[in-house]
């Protein structure tokens, strides 16, 4: 009935739309954000804010704003199915976007304020910066700056490059022995060579 009423008002009676009026197609509203938020609540209403580009849903008590803006369809394919130049956000992908403060994980409970297990974050507050994963034991650092070096992998600890396999640094002391040996460090410039315990005879 609302659709029929609209047709009568706009095509038969010549009612002019104005910026102050919100057009209503059944339960879909197009108008500014302020107009939308001022509209009487009715569960099931949807709205598109022409000034902010956000979509809104009315649960009968309050409006809920979508997290995604409505994207101008310039350059899109005709028809309902978009199968070329997938730039933007759809229900299957996000592309050509920069994500800030985003948690990548599966929520145990939607809307839970606790950090979800499996969340990944880049922590620039640490020195040096760190990549962290949130587990059930808390936040765990993920080694970064890992490089492949002739049959071995190395990583950087406190600006010192260390072999992951041996725990030895590439830098050596004045006696030619690595400054770091099996992640242990001696004071001074002449590291004591790591001993291998051959047991007793």
């Amino acid at each position, binding site marked *: 009935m609302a659709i029929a009423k609209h047709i009568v008002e706009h095509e038969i009676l010549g009612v002019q739309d104005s910026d102050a009026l919100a057009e209503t197609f059944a339960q879909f509203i197009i108008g500014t954000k302020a107009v939308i938020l001022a509209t009487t609540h009715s569960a099931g209403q949807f709205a598109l804010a022409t000034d902010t580009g956000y979509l809104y849903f009315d649960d009968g008590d309050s409006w809920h704003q979508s997290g995604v803006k409505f994207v101008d369809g310039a350059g899109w394919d005709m028809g309902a199915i978009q199968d070329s130049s997938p730039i933007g956000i759809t229900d299957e992908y996000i592309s050509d976007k920069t994500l800030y403060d985003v948690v990548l994980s599966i929520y145990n409970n939607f809307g839970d304020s606790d950090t979800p297990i499996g969340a990944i974050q880049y922590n620039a507050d640490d020195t040096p910066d760190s990549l962290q994963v949130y587990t059930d034991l808390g936040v765990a650092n993920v080694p970064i700056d890992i490089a492949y070096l002739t049959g071995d992998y190395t990583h950087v600890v406190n600006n010192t490059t260390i072999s992951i396999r041996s725990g030895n640094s590439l830098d050596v002391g004045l006696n030619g022995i690595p400054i770091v040996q099996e992640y242990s460090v*001696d004071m*001074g410039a002449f590291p004591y060579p790591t001993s291998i315990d051959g047991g007793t005879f």
Partner: protein
Amino acid sequence: MATYYISTSGNDTTGDGSSALPWATIAKAHTSATSGDTIILKSSASSYLFTGMSIAKTLIFEGESTDYTQQVISGGGLTAQWTYTGAYEITFKNIKIENILSPTSVNTKAIFFRNGAGPVGLRFINSRMTNFTIDKESNSGGLFCTISASSVLELTRSVIDDFDQYTSTTDSALFYHRVGALNEIIITDSIITPKATGTSAVYNVFAFLGSTLREIEAKNLIINATGDAIAWVSGTFTTTDVTYSDFNNVTSSPSGTGNLTSDPLFVGAPAGNFNLKSSSPCRGAGIIP
């Protein structure tokens, strides 16, 4: 930035500074190079000569071999000084420098000296500065002295040892900095050990007079005074971050996480053997630098 070569068998006249036709002297290399260049000292059983020079460029002197004993610069027991003429930095890498006497002329008594605007820098990387004598006069002198210049001193995996002073002076210092805006010292995995003599023992490691900012960061440093004690500093540091270091017989040594005041138990320090004995308290007591 270019790389030039010198060799004890090179020739300053016919050489061109290439690896195939190296020059012979440090002075020739300094004259021919431009700031930022690297001078490679080819390995040799003979020594390069450390003579007086006015530093007018930022240069890196690097030994061809990672074994610092293969590239030796010797003062021959004579008096010599490198005088900075401006804001320049000198780096020694994989080099042993030995047997130098600091000048005794008034107002200029350090081996590496700057009186004027800076900043200036002196860096030792995988190197050893040994067997030298310093003097002190009017709050100057030492191994590295700056007056009115900001400076940076860096020791990385290096040793400064077997040094003393001409006369008994109770405020002499190895490193003297006077009236500079910022004096920054960074020491990692290094050893400082003076000669074990009596009245000729150098009194302080560092001395400051009138400098605005005096910052030090040190890790895995060993200072070992086997004879008379050496004091940590005359004056004060504005920022001290010294950790995992050992100060044996060092007066007023800095406190910090992991610091020790024990005999490091070198295998044979008087003979220049600074390897640690198996029972050394310094084993495993450092931190990844």
